[in-house]
């Protein structure tokens, strides 16, 4: 029985981690046109509880992508310098969408596992009912 509850909590932690990742992706997409915005990335790590690996996923610290910001020529922009350039954001929409798709795929895999484990444990409970 502890196997099942462990598995359920691990699957839930996986979904939570992917949801956090998806949130940062949408923040990046929303800020595509924000001048000076660095895209955010998250890293995952295996959770360590009471000195031992629990198998659950923990979201690591947030990182800012340090790729150079592109210079955008637009003299009418209030942020433009004397040459008419301002710094845009380093968000690449294609990368973000690919990342979002990957997060979705992983989220669905975790959800499927959650459902499957739940089915198995309810089949076990069914034995008691008769």
């Amino acid at each position, binding site marked *: *029985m502890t*196997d*099942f509850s*462990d*598995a359920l909590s*691990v*699957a839930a*932690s*996986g979904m939570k*981690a*992917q949801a956090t*990742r998806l949130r940062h992706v949408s923040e990046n997409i929303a800020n595509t046109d924000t001048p000076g915005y660095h895209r955010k990335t998250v*890293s*995952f*790590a*295996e959770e360590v509880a009471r000195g031992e690996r629990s*198998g*659950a*996923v923990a979201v690591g610290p947030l990182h800012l992508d340090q790729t150079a910001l592109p210079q955008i020529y637009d003299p009418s922009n209030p942020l433009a310098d004397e040459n008419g350039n301002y710094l845009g954001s380093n968000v690449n929409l294609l990368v973000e969408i690919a990342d979002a798709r*990957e997060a979705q*795929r*992983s989220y669905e*895999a*975790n959800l*499927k*596992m959650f459902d*499957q*484990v739940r*089915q*198995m444990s309810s*089949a*076990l409970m*069914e*034995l008691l009912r*008769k």
Partner: protein
Amino acid sequence: MFENISLFQTAGAMAQHAAARQAVTTRNIANADTPGFRAQTLAAFADTYRADDGGAMRATRPGHMHAAAMIAAARPEFSDGEPSPNGNSVSLEQEMVAAVENQREHDRALAIYKHGLSVLRTALGR
């Protein structure tokens, strides 16, 4: 008397094994994007069961622990596939197959157990 029926023990051990394996599979899938994570697996039930046959101690009294209890202690081992650039060796497709296998194993074990129970019930005349 009933606790010595090996059918129930085997079925119970099989269900336990399937659950333990499912937990390992879930852990792999949850960590499918964790850098440096290595996929794990448990040996198949048939292998653990056979392995226990030879070296296991014989239970000669009802109070003795049976071989079935040892199966739960099977250690997960690494099942490395081709690692991706970040060192993660989980293959979602492989895990998907494993998950279905585990569920089927669990269902099969429970079906056997249930059937054994109904035979007992019939014998009791209920």
